[in-house]
């Protein structure tokens, strides 16, 4: 913890010195202290929270739609296995693409208002959720399914007592990844065509050469995104604590590798590789 703080002080101090010594123009790199002052000022303004609310609304709705579609797709591929075999490579490649290339199409269908941003959030979230959920459902051990069936479990009991507990960890990790890319997708779309939202506000600051305010806003977005990501990660660890205990007892470790902040477990590595922001 102390080492991390020292690293933070070194970076912030270096930034401050570089700006004060005019190594870079103030237009390019305003002093860190000025950015912090601007951040505090903006946090006290109603406008900042209104823009945050607009972005949050688009993110939450887009994420919910993308998640629902992803889970539905995963469930369908569990029933129709050939569909998963055929679509898996396509999904992987599509998930690697920059989603911004779909934005013009979304603008045409959903107009330039908030719904095109919701669409970007949904498209961004769909791929990681669909891939992780489908993989998790397909990797439920057959022995568990056979054991449940031999005990008389029907479809509903299979779903609630076998599939859901076995797939919960990876699916939740997919949701976490989906949320992270939905945040990026929505904010990026807002920087392109929008009339409100944090992305739009950052571009307003940039266009009007309020670079210090832009840095402060980006700092706010970064901290918020990182805090949400960390919070969801903790929630996932709490919700899947029983699975982790079992994995540890069995000698396996399905948790994150150190330094890899998104996703969870060996089988998600491929998704982390391919999913884009």
């Amino acid at each position, binding site marked *: 913890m102390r080492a991390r703080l020292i690293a933070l002080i070194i970076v912030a101090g270096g930034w401050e010195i570089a700006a004060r010594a005019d190594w870079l123009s103030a237009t390019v790199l305003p002093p860190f202290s000025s950015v912090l002052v601007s951040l505090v000022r903006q946090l006290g303004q109603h406008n900042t929270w209104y823009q945050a609310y607009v972005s949050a609304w688009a993110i939450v709705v887009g994420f919910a739609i993308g998640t629902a579609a992803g889970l539905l797709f995963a469930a369908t591929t569990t029933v129709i296995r050939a569909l998963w075999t*055929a679509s898996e490579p396509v999904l992987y490649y*599509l998930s*690697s693409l*920059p989603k911004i290339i779909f934005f013009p199409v979304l603008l045409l269908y959903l107009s330039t208002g908030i719904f095109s941003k919701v669409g970007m959030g949904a498209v961004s979230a769909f791929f990681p959720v669909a891939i992780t959920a489908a993989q998790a459902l397909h990797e439920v051990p057959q022995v568990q399914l056979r054991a449940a069936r031999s005990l008389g479990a029907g479809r509903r009991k299979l779903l609630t007592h076998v599939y859901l507990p076995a797939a919960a960890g990876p699916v939740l990790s997919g949701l976490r990844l989906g949320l992270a890319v939905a945040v990026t997708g929505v904010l990026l779309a807002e920087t392109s065509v929008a009339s409100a939202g944090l992305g739009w506000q950052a571009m307003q600051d940039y266009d009007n050469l309020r670079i210090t305010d832009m840095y402060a806003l980006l700092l706010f977005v970064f901290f918020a995104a990182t805090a949400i990501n960390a919070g969801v990660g903790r929630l996932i660890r709490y919700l899947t604590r029983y699975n982790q205990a079992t994995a540890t007892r069995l000698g396996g470790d399905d948790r994150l590798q*150190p*330094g890899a902040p998104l996703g969870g477990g060996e089988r998600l*590595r491929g998704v982390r590789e391919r999913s884009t922001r």
Partner: protein
Amino acid sequence: MRVPRFFLTSVLIVALLAIVEVGVRARVINPLFVAPPSDAIGGAVSGLFDGTLGGPLVVTLYETGVCLVLATVLGVGAGYLLWRYGGLGRAFEPWVAGLFAAPLILLYPIPLVIFGRTSTAVIAQATVMALPPVILYTRQSLAAIPPQFLKVAAVFRLTQGQAMRHVLGPAAAPTLFTGLRLGLTYILVGVISVEYLAEIDGLGKTISFDYLAFDMPGVYSAVVLVIAGAAVLLAAIGRLQAVVRR
């Protein structure tokens, strides 16, 4: 009889494209919004040769290549330092991991302020986005090398360079390539997104301009090329990774 995956995937793609083609031709899907796939693919192929898409593709590939080289050199170097000096690693790795989780693409106005609307700004932004995964995976790949390997290198009195070439490099390569592959996806996102948003030469700008001109076949042709280019690059690095792993 087991049907090969390649066949199933091809059938799925052809079926989906055929449905869209028929839908657009029958005007069930609005042709103002969606170009027939035959037009989009045909436009992509002809655009490659008449220069309307070939030129932007070359620019995008050039930027992607430069970013990959920079991310490899800087990222692997930084990852090595974080592994070599444990204190440095403990201090900075959590912050690099934090950056990995943060939406770095939103920083794109900063390179625009520094470099203007040029290829350099695109390269700077995409390289910054690719650095965290390359750094993290490099450090991870080196940290995962069994200590016995290092002891053997010491027993043979290898110099640091020799140990790197004969022991550390080969042992770390598989995980390191995973980082590079991940870095490449971030580079593609960075390059195309900045080209699109800041209207800097490349396929991203072509998509943006064609959209503004309401030239939907042009938009879809450029999208087809982005998809094809990304698929080829990712498949190439995937194959390289498979070779290294073997």
